[in-house]
């Protein structure tokens, strides 16, 4: 059974059809990349999956449950986590505090006014795990707002990981990064996928990253699904080439 099953979702804003009847299945443990030229509807598609807004038509099934109309918090509780194109962090807090908020929320402590020693220890373990997994241990006590772009992204991913998500949604994880940082973030994603077996869906512009990481690629264009397949299949697909390079003479 697939982890994520999207059935003919459509999103209309007024007269504009941003996403037009797209379907997609992502298997457990898969790393799926979504690509497409600007204005293809990638982010709208992503926002419907994560619950930012509901589709106009169609259904989204997450791990056997229909989540089409559920609010963000409910999807998060079911194990969906995401990052954003522009890094969304708590800039005035340290890396550790950023992660702590995620851990406490994941452990269901978010409305507690008091926690015991055992829970405190569990929280600290969760924080350390996320720090190690993302290689942020050395920067743990620095303010996130002061870190480099790549490290901020890593911190955002670390915070998302605290939720122990069964599905990790990454919106352009390498956007606006230099060569070096892109490499580091791509490596981090690879580790999460290969070593920790996370199911990941990501939107990405950097084709080297996409073709290196993805198990399968979905290509969107003008709100429609253009193609789907392994990196090799996509690379050879004339429709994709046309969408990206324009119609051949």
């Amino acid at each position, binding site marked *: 059974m697939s982890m994520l099953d999207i059935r003919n979702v459509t999103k209309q804003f007024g007269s504009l059809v941003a996403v037009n009847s797209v379907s997609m299945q992502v298997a457990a443990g898969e790393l799926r990349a979504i690509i497409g030229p600007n204005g293809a509807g990638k982010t709208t598609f992503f926002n419907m999956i*994560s619950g930012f807004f509901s589709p106009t038509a169609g259904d989204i099934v997450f791990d056997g449950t229909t989540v089409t109309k559920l609010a*963000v*918090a409910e999807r*998060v*509780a079911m194990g969906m*986590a*995401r990052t*954003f194109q522009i890094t*969304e*962090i*708590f*800039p*005035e*807090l*340290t890396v550790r*505090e950023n992660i*702590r*908020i*995620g851990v*406490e*929320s*994941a452990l269901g*402590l*978010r*409305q*507690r*006014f*008091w*926690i015991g020693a055992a829970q405190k220890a569990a929280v600290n373990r969760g924080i350390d795990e996320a720090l190690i997994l993302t290689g942020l241990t050395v920067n743990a006590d620095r*303010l996130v*707002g*002061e870190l480099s772009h790549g490290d901020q992204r890593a911190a*955002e991913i670390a*915070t*998302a990981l*605290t*939720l122990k998500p069964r599905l990790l949604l990454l919106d352009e994880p390498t956007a606006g990064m230099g060569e070096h940082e892109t490499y580091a973030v791509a490596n981090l994603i690879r580790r999460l996928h290969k070593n920790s077996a996370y199911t990941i869906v990501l939107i990405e512009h950097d084709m080297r990253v996409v073709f290196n990481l993805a198990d399968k690629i979905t290509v969107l264009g003008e709100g429609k699904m253009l193609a789907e397949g392994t990196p090799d299949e996509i690379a050879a697909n004339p429709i994709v080439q046309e969408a990206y390079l324009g119609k051949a003479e």
Partner: protein
Amino acid sequence: MSTATTTAVTTPVMPARPWLTTAIIFAALLTVPVWLPMLGGYTALAGRVLVLGLAAMSFNLLLGFTGVMSFGHAAYFGLGAYGAGLTLKYIAPSTPLAMVGGVLLGGILGSLFGRLIAQRRGVYFAMVTVAFGQIAFYVTYSWDSLTGGYDGLRGFSRAPLNLGFTTIDITNNSTYFYYFLLFVFAVATGLQALLLASPFGRTLVAIRENERRARFLGIPIERHIWMSFSISCCFTALAGALYALLNNFADPMGLHYSLSGEIVIMTVMGGMRAFWGPLIGAALFVVLQDYISSMTVNWMSFVGLIFVLVVLFFPRGLLGMLQKGTEK
């Protein structure tokens, strides 16, 4: 609330040396009856600082630590005062019960209002809170038979504290009453500090720092803003109850939005990102106002000028600047 504010200040939740700051503040507060008269002050002034300081600190749970701006907090302050006064007048002459009465009245109404407005943000939140505050003002002002209307609620006074083994006379001894205020203040601010250090408190800071990220960590934002609003109202109402005990009187001006504005300026003046900032702001504001209003009838211009100068030149507030200074 958003990352886009250019006044983004890189200060942690608590000052670098929280215990030192706290120790200095309490040492100063404990010795007020000794040093204040020497500087030409008087104990009642310190009482007012404590009460308004508590109100501002309670308000700051919202502004400074949740990133939500209420501009109608005087309403809950005033309701707290009426709650205390009505309890003393109609239920029982007990000072602790009066405080409970004040907190319940301000807290419950604040909580109900909060439920209606938790999904609003920014200036719109502010605007709706002002309007709501004016409803409360209007009702106390008009409900003559219960509240005494325009003339205020009279005919009650704080009762001596009966501790079982002894009775403390806080009715006629202003020094005892000051220490009583200080005790309540310490307990309330202690609770606030614990709250902010708790997981719940951290979710509030998370909402302030980045609402979208907090939402995608599974924090139910509206619910937490509502809870924060309710808690803030309860503490503000407690301050209001103390104000009623201080004056042995409650009047509708205690709910008016001009007092809301003063609470906000105290908070900003002292530093809204610092735990003790609002207290320092309240002290500065109360003393300045007391001094200026004795010197000139045009004190309103000076108070207005304080607002303008703080906003234009000292937006971090006093403690904010000090913290920035020590970090360098």
